[in-house]
Structures are given as structure tokens and as C-alpha cells.
């Protein structure tokens, strides 16, 4: 996906901005870092959701990451957010850490956004289908079975 280090091939002339106004080349690395980290965060959301459904222990473990969130626990008519708080927390952590790391690594790199686009859309479709239980449950159970887990 990495193509080149300069932006010369991607700089169409504009009627109010041109290359001479730029002090630095425009690298696409920061966009790629932001996008891939966001996708990783969403992937974490999907994975933690399915993992939490496997056993009570895994459910409690994931829930425990969200205890800091107001309303994460509780019973009665007012209810609680439950393990959803833990899934959101883990997704936020993965998103944030990955973004910082990727941005630091790729801030002066240039990548092909044309190549990233189908990857981005394909991943979103995959994640979306990964949340549709009638489709994904047999797959999850198969993978869980390989690790010795059976759905509770």
C-alpha cells in the first residue's frame, strides 16, 4: 500500500492554493493512522461482544473494564449499562493507543488512499456482518470450539 515519500503526484493545481504555499509535503500517513485505528477500535467492539457471550467468566472480565463508567452496574427498573460499558472501554483503549502509535510511526509516510478505500469499506462491511447474529454465530461458535469454549 505504501507508495512514495512525496506528494508531487497527488497535487492538482488549485486556484487558491498551490504547492508553493506548503512548507511541508502533505503526507497521507496521518489519515491512514486515524482510519486504521478507528477500524481496530470497532473490531475490538465486535470481538469483545462475541467473547462476552461465550462464558460467564469472560462476560464478567469484559464488564470489569467498564466499572469506571457511571451506571455500569445496577439492578431494578433503572437498570445498568452492563458489560456494554466494558466493550466500549476496551474499544476506546485500543482505538486511542493504536492511533497514537500509528500516527507517530506514519506521520511522515505517504500511502495510497486509493488502495485503502476498498480495504476500509470491506472491513466495515465485515464488521457490520460480524454483528448480525444469524450470520456470524455459527462462525463464532466454530472458532470458540477450536479454543475449547462452548457458548453458555
Amino acid at each position: 500500500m505504501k507508495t512514495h515519500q512525496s506528494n508531487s503526484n497527488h497535487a492538482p493545481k488549485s486556484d487558491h492554493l498551490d504547492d508553493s504555499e506548503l512548507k511541508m509535503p502533505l503526507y497521507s500517513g496521518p489519515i491512514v493512522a486515524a482510519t486504521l485505528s478507528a477500524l481496530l477500535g470497532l473490531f475490538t467492539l465486535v470481538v469483545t461482544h462475541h467473547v462476552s457471550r461465550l462464558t460467564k467468566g469472560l462476560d464478567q472480565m469484559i464488564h470489569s473494564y467498564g466499572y469506571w463508567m457511571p451506571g455500569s452496574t445496577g439492578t431494578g427498573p433503572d437498570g445498568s449499562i452492563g458489560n456494554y460499558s466494558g466493550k466500549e472501554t476496551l474499544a476506546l483503549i485500543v482505538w486511542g493507543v493504536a492511533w497514537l502509535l500509528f500516527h507517530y510511526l506514519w506521520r511522515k509516510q505517504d500511502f495510497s488512499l486509493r488502495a485503502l478505500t476498498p480495504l476500509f469499506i470491506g472491513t466495515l462491511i465485515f464488521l457490520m456482518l460480524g454483528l448480525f447474529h444469524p450470520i456470524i454465530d455459527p462462525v463464532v461458535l466454530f472458532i470458540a470450539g477450536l479454543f475449547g469454549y462452548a457458548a453458555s
Partner: protein
Amino acid sequence: MDHPAIDAHQLTKFLIRFQAICALVLLLMVSGLDFFFPTQYALKAAVHGISAISALVVGTFITHRAYFLLRGARTNYKSLRKWTAAATLLNFLGAVSGNWIYMRYRGQDGPRDWILKNVPDFHNVLMEFKEFVSLFPFPLMVVATFTLFYYKDHIHLRHDMKQFIAIIMMTSWFFLMLGFVSGLILAKLRFV
């Protein structure tokens, strides 16, 4: 005889704004009137509904701006940055208020209990899908906002970047719609 017409530019501008304001007010009433519903969770429902509708409206507006980016046409980046930041904020409010109303959804004798008893697939499939898909637009809109602020007006020099941001804005809108419609179906099925 001279038949002076109304200034077409002014008339069009007025009608576009009038139509947009009418649509916005009427749409906001869909959830705004939740405040007066006979439930002790009316505030939570109204806040979530209003933030979700606002996020959808601004997200839809952003997709119209995105077409200019896709084509590589000139656009007002300062205004686009503001609208994208507003969309991000509204998505965040939608997610936070979603957590707030979700508590009651899961509460004792709440909508989840009723749905599981009567039409379990609406919870097991639709709600389990909706609660996560509704979170997708926020990070996507954060990426778009970050990019527009990071590169400022210089993004105009890279058509590939503009196209990519436009695609992100459109995917964000798609997930906003999915979450919104699923939420509406569930609220119609069993209100809090």
C-alpha cells in the same frame, strides 16, 4: 407591460432555508414530544431522540458537502470543518445518551424484558446489531474532523484525500441511518 419577478436567487435561498427549518422542527418533534410522554424516563428518551435526530440531520447535510469533495470542486473548508466538528459532537451526544437510555432498556420490566418475552428476535438480532452499529458513526466522523483540521485548507491539494474523507462521511451517514431506523423500530415496539 413589465412584470417584475422576485429575485430568483433570493427566493431560492429563502425557500431552501425555510424547507430545511420546517423539516428540522418537525423531525425534532418526533422525539421532542417524548418530554410529555407518561413515563418517568421521558427525559432520557427525549434527550437521546433529539441528539440522534440532530446527528442524522447534520450527518445528512455533511454528505451533501461530501459530493463537492468527491468531485474535487472548491468548497468552503472553514465551514466544512465547523459542520464536521458539529456532527462529531452530536454523534458523541447520541452515543452517551444512548448509554443513558440503554440502562432503562435493560432495567427490570423494561423494553428488553418485554421484547424477549414477546418477540425475542427483535432483541437477539435487531437490538444486538443496533447497539454496536450505532457506535460506528462517531469514530468515523472523528477521523473526518481530525483530517480536515490537521491538513486545513491544504487538503485541497490532494484530491485523493478529499475523496477518501468524502467516503468516510458517507459511510458514517450509512451507519447513522442504520442505527436510527433500528432504534425507531425498537422504540415503536416498546417504549421505555
